[in-house]
């Protein structure tokens, strides 16, 4: 894309008349990358969009208490609200001769019930913002966790090769083929039915904890990051500076952390925004199926699930959280492209190898 084109640093210095040459200050590769990223306007715009969404979601309590004056978590079946000066039921009875069905209020385009209510009479806009906190929290933490685990395992596998590599790679195959939905559903059920959540020594996981979903998603995508990391380690391993270190008598650990790791960290950094995008999508899918975030917590996926029963009468409930997901994931994808171009503008598209 034209906007992502690399602008070469000119090494010709044009001196104005009377100016003495200054010493050339070298910039580290990180600084250069940073400059390239900042100059990339589209990437900066999408970073801005992502941060905007994060801030909006963090401000969910402010929105609910001070702007909308609604409680996005309490069931509000018999409640009423004021729309255009008139007091109306939040959940309204069906019309016609039979009077069947109860439909929640639709978008009011005012501060209260901006995009309407759901089946329990809760403000969908406020819920979407609260849900965003969970979706983003799970998305970011599982991506970070995933990259950390994959980094460590990839370095170990690529460095030690042979048996270690074989075992780790086959384990990755196993994880990749494993039914994530079964794991999610069983862990969700275990947590729900244990009286006080799970207790492993000092670690206590309550049934409303987000950690179960976070860990499942993190583990499931480890193979995805592991493969390119391991591939990079294998190629870096053969480079001269590693050989030089070996001939200097460096220990394995020193080699791994001082020589190899810094050279493959860019692989992981490039993958990180893309992984966050992927984990946000996965979390929404699991929550949509009812095996991710559990009530009373909400997430974008659970709200879309709630919206299924209202799809033809109150489509806003299903559509609004989806728009947030698209905006978040899109901004992360564009940012990811920008980061990749900044770190290595001549890089190949990162693929599984």
């Amino acid at each position: 894309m034209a906007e992502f084109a690399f602008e070469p640093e000119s090494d010709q210095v044009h001196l104005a008349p009377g100016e003495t040459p200054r010493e050339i200050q070298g910039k580290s590769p990180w600084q250069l990358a940073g400059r390239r990223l900042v100059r990339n306007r589209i990437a900066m715009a999408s970073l801005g969009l992502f941060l905007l969404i994060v801030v909006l979601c963090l401000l969910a309590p402010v929105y609910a208490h001070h702007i909308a004056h609604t409680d996005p978590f309490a069931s509000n079946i018999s409640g009423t609200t004021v729309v255009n000066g008139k007091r109306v039921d939040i959940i309204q009875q069906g019309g016609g001769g039979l009077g069947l069905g109860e439909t929640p209020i639709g978008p009011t385009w005012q501060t209260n019930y901006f995009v309407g209510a759901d089946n329990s009479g809760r403000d969908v806009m406020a819920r979407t913002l609260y849900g965003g906190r969970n979706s983003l929290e799970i998305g970011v933490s599982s991506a970070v966790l995933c990259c950390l685990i994959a980094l460590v395992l990839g370095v170990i596998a690529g460095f030690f090769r042979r048996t270690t590599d074989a075992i780790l790679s086959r384990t990755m195959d196993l994880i990749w083929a494993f039914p994530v939905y079964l794991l999610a559903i069983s862990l969700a059920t275990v947590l729900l039915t244990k009286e006080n959540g799970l207790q492993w020594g000092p670690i206590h996981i309550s049934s409303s904890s987000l950690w179960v979903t976070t860990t499942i998603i993190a583990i499931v995508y480890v193979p995805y990051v592991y493969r390119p990391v391991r591939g990079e380690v294998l190629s870096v391993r053969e480079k001269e500076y590693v050989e030089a270190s070996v001939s200097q008598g460096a220990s394995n650990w020193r080699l791994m952390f001082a020589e190899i790791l810094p050279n493959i960290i860019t692989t992981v950094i490039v993958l990180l925004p893309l992984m966050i995008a992927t984990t946000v999508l996965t979390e929404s899918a699991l929550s949509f199926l009812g095996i991710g975030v559990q009530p009373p917590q909400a997430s974008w996926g659970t709200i879309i699930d709630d919206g299924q029963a209202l799809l033809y009468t109150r489509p806003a409930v299903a559509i609004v959280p989806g728009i947030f997901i698209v905006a978040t994931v899109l901004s992360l994808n564009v940012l990811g492209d920008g980061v990749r171009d900044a770190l290595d503008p001549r890089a190949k598209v990162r693929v599984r190898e």
Partner: protein
Amino acid sequence: MKRSVILFSAVLALVLVAAGCGGSSKKSSTTSTTASGGTKGGVFIGLANAAPPGSPDPQVNYTAQEWQLLIMTHDGLVGFKRASGTEGTKIVPDLAESIPKPTNGGKTWTFKLRSGIKFSNGQTLTGNDVKATFVRLFKIGDSPNAGTWYNVIQGGDGCVKTPASCTLDKGITVNGNTVTFHLARQDPEFLDQLAMPFVLILPASTPDKNVNIPPAGTGPYKWVQYAPTKQIKLVRNPFFKEWSKDAQPAGNPDVILQKFGLSVEAEVTAVENNQADWMFDPPPADRLNEMGTKYANRVHINPLTATYYFAFNVNEPPFNNLKARQGVNFATDRNALVKITGGPKLAVPTCQVLPPNFPGYQQYCPYTKNPSAKWTAPDLTKAKQLIAASGTKGASVKVNTDTTDTDKALGLYFVGLLRSLGYKATLQALSSDIQYSYIQNSKNHVQFAFSDWYQDYPAASDFLNILLGCGSIHPNSNSSPNIAQFCDKGIQAKMTQAASTGITDPAAANKQWAQVDKEVTDQAPWVSMYNPKYVDFLSTRVKGYQFSPQWFFLIAQSSVK
């Protein structure tokens, strides 16, 4: 029986390969009208999201979905009259010529079978088939009520213990077409239990193992296809001759289909477009308004003898305290709960155990603002007083429900309500398939759980004794229907009294059951929520719709021509 067996077969069971979506109806070329009413001929196309779960064996299956079909293909010694309203709760003789009076202190029942009745495989019905049916009930080992209802027959208990050697030689004696039952004790509900599908009479040649399609029967139709992935197909039984219009009328359609695989939304659309005649599943909430306005003349709503409730656990704090339970009952806004389920046209608030139009039912509601027999409004002041007096404020409560939209919304309502009353309430929503067993097991220490109950047959004990009797508590078992663990010696004695009065004087017994209902309600083991209604949505083709309180839509008696 539990609602899930009626309405959840769609949600719980597997979704399988679909048959043609809304296929065209095949009309037969013969048209004739009979004196019994209704035009004969045509193909009745019903839709269901999935096949009835469980075993297809008629002596094992416990779903209203399959029962609705079995009554068209099989007969019992007696049956419920095939009529709507209270007429439909009367028991009439079916394969038996008449309803006998029991002798020997109510322990001996002698039935004389009608002669000349044939199974759909050509065999003639004899007393041996009757005895063989009852023996098979025990021999197959997994008939749900063999050990609770039919062990009243002499030898029944032994048969439950060692099914393989079951003969019931002492319990049932056969003499040609006369069949005599020898009971171990009096049973006022024996006739009701004889009318249930578990003991629809099968040919003696039926194997002793669960079958994959119901075997030959004496009814006007026979099963020719049971493909759980595709459809059920019933066609006319060529050997059937109508012997009693009340018990087993000749059917109108030539073929009855029930096709599986469509989503519930697609089913509504198919019936709207007359591509199918009827859908078994309850319509989804977002189509109700549309159905009630554009297609109002094709929608039929009938009350169900069922109660939806949340059960307290009277042995677990904080609800081992009577005042706390009563306080929550006073605070509950039953109108809001009715709204969640689809509005006042689809459910009626209740405070008590028995449903309306049920033997022993006398409307009673102590938990309402303005004292009256009917619930009108919650009384929050009284509620808060009671809860303050109970000293349970601040306790943690887990509100247990299942994950379907409606039940989750009900649970959410109670979480909010309990919080406003000062409890620390949280929601625990389990998958529908494990929720019911989970809440029955005392190991799980549930405090407040959603459940429902549909009648098996019209008898007050079916609700009060099964759900709130001391004998229904089985600790540490997944089968303990008394979820509230309610056991009151005085009330139990009254139940026993009412049961024995019922043997000789049903009217007096019903008054006693009404008293039991009152006393149980006062003890508040439940928050009774509402009594639901059943929605039947039909195509424009269907005429002669009748709703039996026992079997629901009487398909065979409608016509599609």
